[in-house]
């Protein structure tokens, strides 16, 4: 990396931009290895090191291999992009790297055997932009993921970083920045969907001179890792958003609250802050303006409830993260009693693009009521799990089938869960629903932070409701009666139903408790806690009734209500199930018929998962 430059004026910045661009343009041979948490868990560090060695061995001095943020195609990790044209290699192993460097990086030809093969067309697709998973995306929040080294501030600047900040500080008033965000139609990406500009305006209007901006990086919804990808892959983009927000509303101090389960994101953000301070993007008189600003990271302590705004404030203030009644908005009295703007990571990272390209550009993407794009983490029973960013308004069907390949194993689609523990399940009848803030609300769910959990016929909806209720009961701060006692009772009722002790009266009791939680809870954790139960009752009531009246779990998940059997007509005797059974309860010789001893069977379902002939089913 080049020596640090401190920019104190706009012309300093322009010179730095020039230098950074030249440096980047001089690198003719580029490789981008995904260094997001997911790909690292799949071994991408070894792949990255193999590229470094191979490039050094080949003597290429205008080459660079960047260990970047999450590319998004997690199911194909370790994911690698080679060359300017971005040849895509998924599931790359260190031993394949030498060939890729020689054939693709140096000679410009793809290695056919290592290319992505589309399951539907059976074609090998060399370039990332033609891979269906990538082709339909529109990457704004994820714009620099995969493109830059997140730990190199000059790389960020070379591709356009801090340009928005420079424009704002040199040519716009805070009021103009505020108006741009208002005009863009940006709505909060953390789940609430509240108009961002309106929130900023309320804070800016306060008489109190001290204000704060906070980035909510607590991303507690299980199954959601969009903000993780953004914080790891484009930390400076988050900082730039906060700086612009601070400028717009007159805040001198920003905080980023990051959950402790994201150590890589924390590290990258801290490195980015350190670099920004060194280079002069944080501190006093930034870029020669009279704007002073600094940012501090606050680490979470393992409490989902701290994602709730008033609880987050309590946590920053040094106490237990318990929510408070919010009858006075945070924009009036927030952190330390001062006007505070709290927004989600994805919301913040959109701001520089709005300033750079103008609010009209942002408004032209997405739908009338939901401008822009949304990053989703598509996980669960889906073929291509990962992070995707698409314009608001894409249908659920398009997202799950066209972008993410459809249900894993081509099993029957049952529904998609959105909005995390505050959301609901959306069944097959709504597959053609547009994904935007308002339409998801109408079918009993919500956008939430962007986690989309795909479910198939082997997902039990009663167990899903029980799972989320247990999650929330464990995460409840315990302050208010309806949430603390109500969730505990709901968990007991749902556990009874999944273990064969259910009754129809219990369903009535669940529904009544759900209403009381919604009415009487102190915070949104409690007031939305019953959504998973209510939405599964709305669309899958028959499953509840089957558990209670027939003592049967059709998905084969609730062990007390499941019996597996092997269909002798379909069984080919391949013996695969016997090999995976943890209790050796399947008898049968190779090529002969197999049988499960239900007295010994522990209902783990591994045999059914392994059988390629659909011969093992729930009785």
């Amino acid at each position, binding site marked *: 990396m080049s020596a640090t430059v401190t920019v104190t004026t706009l012309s300093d910045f322009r010179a730095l931009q020039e230098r950074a661009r030249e440096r980047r343009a001089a690198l003719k041979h580029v490789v981008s290895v995904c260094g997001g948490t997911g790909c690292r868990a799949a071994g991408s560090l070894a792949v990255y090191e193999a590229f470094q060695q191979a490039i050094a061995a080949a003597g290429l001095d205008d080459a660079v291999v960047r260990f970047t943020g999450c590319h998004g195609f997690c199911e194909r990790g370790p994911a690698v992009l080679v060359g300017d044209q971005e040849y895509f290699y998924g599931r790359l192993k260190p031993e394949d790297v030498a060939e890729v460097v020689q054939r693709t990086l140096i000679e410009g030809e793809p290695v056919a055997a290592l290319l992505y093969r589309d399951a539907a067309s059976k074609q090998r697709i060399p370039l990332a932009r033609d891979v269906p998973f990538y082709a339909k995306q529109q990457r704004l929040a994820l714009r620099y993921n995969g493109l830059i080294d997140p730990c190199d501030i000059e790389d960020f600047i070379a591709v356009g970083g801090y340009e928005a900040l420079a424009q704002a500080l040199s040519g716009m008033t805070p009021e103009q920045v505020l108006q741009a965000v208002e005009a863009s139609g940006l709505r909060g990406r953390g789940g609430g969907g509240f108009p961002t500009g309106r929130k900023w305006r309320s804070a800016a209007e306060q008489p109190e001179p001290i204000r704060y901006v906070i980035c909510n990086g607590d991303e507690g919804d299980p199954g959601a890792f969009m903000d993780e990808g953004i914080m790891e892959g484009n930390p400076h983009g988050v900082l730039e958003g906060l700086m612009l927000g601070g400028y717009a509303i007159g805040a001198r101090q920003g905080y980023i609250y990051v959950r402790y389960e994201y150590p890589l994101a924390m590290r990258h953000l801290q490195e980015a802050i350190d670099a920004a301070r060194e280079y002069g993007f944080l501190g006093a008189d930034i870029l020669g303006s009279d704007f002073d600003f600094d940012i501090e990271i606050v680490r979470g302590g393992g*409490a989902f*409830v701290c994602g709730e705004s008033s609880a987050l404030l309590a946590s920053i203030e040094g106490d*237990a993260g318990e929510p*408070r*009644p919010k*009858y*006075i908005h945070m924009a009036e009295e927030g952190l330390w009693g001062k006007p505070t703007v709290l927004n989600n990571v994805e919301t913040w990272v959109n701001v520089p693009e709005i300033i750079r390209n103008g609010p009209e550009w942002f408004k032209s993407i997405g739908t009338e009521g939901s401008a822009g794009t949304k990053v989703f983490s598509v996980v669960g029973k889906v073929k291509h799990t990962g992070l995707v960013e698409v314009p608001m308004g894409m249908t659920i069907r398009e997202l799950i089938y066209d972008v993410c390949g459809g249900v894993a194993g081509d099993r029957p689609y049952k529904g998609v869960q959105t909005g995390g523990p505050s959301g609901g399940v959306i069944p097959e009848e709504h597959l053609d629903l547009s994904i935007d803030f308002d339409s998801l609300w109408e079918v009993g769910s919500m956008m939430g932070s962007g986690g989309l959990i795909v479910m198939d016929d082997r997902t039990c909806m009663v167990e899903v409701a029980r799972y989320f209720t247990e999650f929330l*009961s*464990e*995460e*409840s*701060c*315990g*302050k*208010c*009666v*309806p949430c*603390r*006692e*109500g969730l*505990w*009772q709901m968990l*007991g009722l749902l556990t009874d139903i999944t273990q064969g002790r259910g009754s129809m009266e219990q369903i009535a*009791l669940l529904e*009544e*408790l759900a*209403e*009381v939680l919604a*009415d*009487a*809870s*102190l915070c949104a954790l409690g007031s939305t806690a019953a959504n998973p139960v209510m939405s599964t009752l709305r669309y899958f009531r028959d499953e509840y009734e089957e558990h209670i009246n027939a003592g049967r779990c059709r998905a084969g998940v609730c062990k007390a209500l499941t019996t597996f059997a092997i269909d002798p007509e379909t069984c080919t005797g391949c013996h695969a199930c016997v090999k995976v059974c943890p209790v050796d309860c399947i008898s049968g010789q190779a090529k002969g018929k197999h049988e499960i001893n239900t007295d010994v069977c522990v209902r783990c379902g591994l045999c059914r998962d392994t059988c390629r002939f659909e011969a093992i089913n729930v009785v």
Partner: protein
Amino acid sequence: MLTITLNGREVPAEKGETIFEVAHREGVYIPTLCHHGGLEPGSVCRLCLVEVTDGRRSRLVTACSYPIMKSGLVVQTDTEQIARDRRVIIELLLARCPENEALREIAGVMGIADSRFKPGKTAEQCILCGLCERVCEHAVRVGGISRSDRGVHRRIGGPFGDPPPGCTGCAACAHVCPTGAIEVTVADRVLKLQPWGAEVEMAACVECGALFAPRAAIEAAAAKLAVRPEYVSVCYDCRRGKHGRDLSKTVRAARP
């Protein structure tokens, strides 16, 4: 001065007053368990829910902590929905503390014979209202009692389950507890507060010998007034001359 509509009647309110304060003044009853007029609201029992309509938007808020900031609000303190919510909250608390007398009494008044919910430990008496913590922290300024852990595991007491540090035996916690979960006993010159396990030595009145106050409280009071402990070691009855004694010599002798 603002004006709001309370159960159909127009009433005045100072800006920043809570709905509970206004209702109390107007003689409108709103049930609470975790509220005490001398302390900041807790808003945790949720019994004081009322319906507030602001323009077109209606919602349920806790009267104890909702500040009235403008005129024209329409407040209903008792709707069917609210009545149902209150009943279920009491049922939930009864399930938590199945043998608590105070809760049984409240349930009786509301016509609830039994809770429909699965009961917890029969010995549980605490509803985690937080009044003991608030009075110790903010009124008495000792701050020995605190909530800990979270969710159903939430507890209130001293750290590590130890007696509250700095406890002077003032028993304000027992005084504010709505369910009688805190017990004060005096035996052998020792005042005990359960379930805290706090033990405080009692001081005897220098006149009549009655055990009338914790020694630590006497010493704290004496220190605050910058006098010798004997100066404040006369019980209430003796100070009022109940035993016909002339205290002037004792008190004068005890002055600094």
